[in-house]
């Protein structure tokens, strides 16, 4: 069934279809619609979940961790300052291997405050052990909630997953979304059945004080789970594609990369706009394509290395700054492509929610194409910014 709904509504529908059992919630723009929709589902009897109106995001993630440890499938959503406030608890859920799924409505974090899209909220959580996937439209937002539970609860992974959707650009935009049938989701996603829970019938200790003799092995174990997730994400993507007819490519997706000489690595909704830019450039005879970076954690280093082996330059879009010069994605891509001599150019745009236009994306390709031709270009390019700009 197709419905014309916002990204937030799509996420809420996804959570409902996954039969989540506990939803600790706290409002924050532009995520609030998600928890409001879930509250409606619960109060209208459409969804059999414990909806907990917590008093802060820190408490949201605390309740989420505890409910997950007690064996429940848990969902919540947050954004920006909320994500920052629960930061401590992100570091508890992941190493304790609690497969919570939390949607993050990407929003600028910090002072001075704003409410529009930027990735500096979730980028700060990149070393917490959470998986992160950035979606491009409302359909993918819904589908990735469903896939996220399969990935998170896979025994080879058992890590929490954070699907990120662009604040306002998706959260508050309506578009047609195919709502999967409940029975199809049920057969794709079996109930959560962890081996060890806080069950008095079989007492367990979870989160004990841990001395140095063990904690390094625990970190290594978590790192292994994150590495294993790469394979699992691919398998689950393929299975989802078979069952539901929508294939997102796994860790990364590609558009017109078959014979591309220049590639742009994009994330989130900028991917969507870039598809049209690529079509225009292709019409003009430019051999360009895009690589949609879906998962930022685990980072698809091997995939990027492989798909970029034939191109002569790559541009990297970043929607936040890491204060080392460029953006965090740029940093990761350069590290992934170590040993490969192709020019890697960073494009900073859309920060603080500034609209990322086709012209800007066109400019990103322009600069990258010049670099491909051997012209000396700036490594880091601020787009549509006053002062020296591209």
């Amino acid at each position, binding site marked *: 069934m197709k419905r014309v709904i916002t990204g937030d509504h799509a996420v809420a529908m996804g959570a409902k279809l996954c039969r989540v059992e506990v939803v600790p919630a706290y409002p924050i723009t532009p995520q609030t619609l998600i928890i409001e929709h879930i509250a409606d589902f619960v109060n209208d009897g459409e969804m059999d979940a414990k909806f907990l109106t917590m008093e802060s995001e820190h408490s949201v993630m605390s309740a989420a961790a505890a409910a997950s440890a007690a064996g429940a499938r848990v969902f919540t959503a947050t954004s920006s300052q909320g994500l920052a406030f629960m930061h401590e608890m992100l570091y508890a859920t992941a190493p*304790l291997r609690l497969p919570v799924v939390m949607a993050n409505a990407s929003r600028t974090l910090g002072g001075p405050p704003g409410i529009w899209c930027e990735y500096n909220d979730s980028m700060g959580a990149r070393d917490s052990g959470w998986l992160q996937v950035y979606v491009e439209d409302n359909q993918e937002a819904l589908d990735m909630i469903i896939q996220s539970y399969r990935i998170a609860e896979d025994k080879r992974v058992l890590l929490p997953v954070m699907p990120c959707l662009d604040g306002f650009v998706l959260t508050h935009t309506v578009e047609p979304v195919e709502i999967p049938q409940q029975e199809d989701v049920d057969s794709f996603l079996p109930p959560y059945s962890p081996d060890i829970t806080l069950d008095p019938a079989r*007492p367990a*200790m*979870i989160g004990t004080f841990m*001395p140095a003799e*063990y904690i390094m*092995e625990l970190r290594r*174990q978590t790192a292994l789970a994150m590495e294993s997730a790469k394979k699992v994400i691919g398998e689950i993507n393929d299975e989802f594609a078979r069952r539901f007819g929508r294939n997102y490519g796994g860790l990364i997706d590609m558009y017109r990369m078959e014979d591309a000489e220049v590639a742009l690595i994009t994330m989130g909704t900028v991917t969507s706009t870039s598809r049209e830019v690529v079509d225009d450039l292709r019409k003009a005879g430019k051999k360009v394509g895009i690589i949609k970076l879906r998962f930022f954690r685990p980072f698809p280093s091997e995939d990027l290395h492989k798909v970029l082996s034939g191109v002569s330059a790559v541009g990297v879009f970043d929607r936040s700054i890491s204060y080392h010069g460029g953006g965090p994605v740029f940093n990761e891509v350069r590290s992934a492509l170590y040993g490969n001599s192709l020019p890697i150019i960073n494009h900073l745009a859309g920060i603080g929610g500034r609209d990322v236009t086709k012209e800007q994306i066109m400019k990103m390709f322009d600069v990258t194409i010049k670099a491909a031709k051997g012209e000396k270009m700036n490594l880091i390019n601020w787009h549509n910014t006053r002062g020296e700009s591209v």
Partner: protein
Amino acid sequence: MFEVRFHGRGGQGAVMAAQTLAEAAVIEGNYAVAFPFFGAERRGAPVLAFTRIDPEKIYSKTQVYAPDCVVVLDDSLLDTIDVVAGLKPEGTVVINSKDKPEDIDLGKEIRTGAINATSVALEILKAPITNTTILGAFAKVTGVVKIESLEEAIKRRFGEKLGKIVGERNALAARTAYEKTAIGRSKGIKKLEPKKQWLPAYQELPVGGALVEGKTEAGLIGPGSFIENKVMGWATFRPVRDREKCTMCLLCWFYCPEGTIVRISDRGDLMTNYDYCKGCGICANECPVDAIKMVRARV
């Protein structure tokens, strides 16, 4: 470089001793560092502290594994800890003990200085705080720092924190120990089995560190496994119950924070399991009929 490892129990002041020794070395124009091993143990549990002394600046920030000297503040530690582990063959042990060096079995024949620091401390400080006392013995046995420098360091560090008189008294305790320390060679008979520890590789570590009741080669793990942790070494005193006087009111059983006092319901009796007694004395203090007396745990 001269490296020292201190063995004590939480609350005995091993860290303060290590720092005071460092200060004495600095007074003599050396460079010195002192640091604890930051365990999370509570008062009474074994702790470690280290001091390094050298004429030049010391850069090493690791723990000490091959000490030149080991200082033992509490000889009850010998029952469970191989205090001479890694000690250099020409190294020295300084130990708080009422015995002569020749009568102390360290599992290794080694140059040893023994001082009954507890008795010196009780006499001079009116408290069994042995960390300054034992430093006097250290000066005597090793000669690494002069007793005068130690006295000065003690006055500075303790005086600063606890007042001039306390500083002077502690310096006197060190001096007294310096005079009384006996030097000889220890016995090397007993063999301490190294404590077994379950150390799984990362692939074998339970997912997320979540544990249910289990058993490994090194013993129990998971819920309730602390039962294997015998803590009797912590105790200076232990309770002795007079069964004639006891009315089985069960207050001692209720109050014991440890589980030392075990009730055997079918016999209507109580049993004291000294494996877990830390010697707090609550049972004796609260017994309404004075049926429990605290006696020295080790004589």
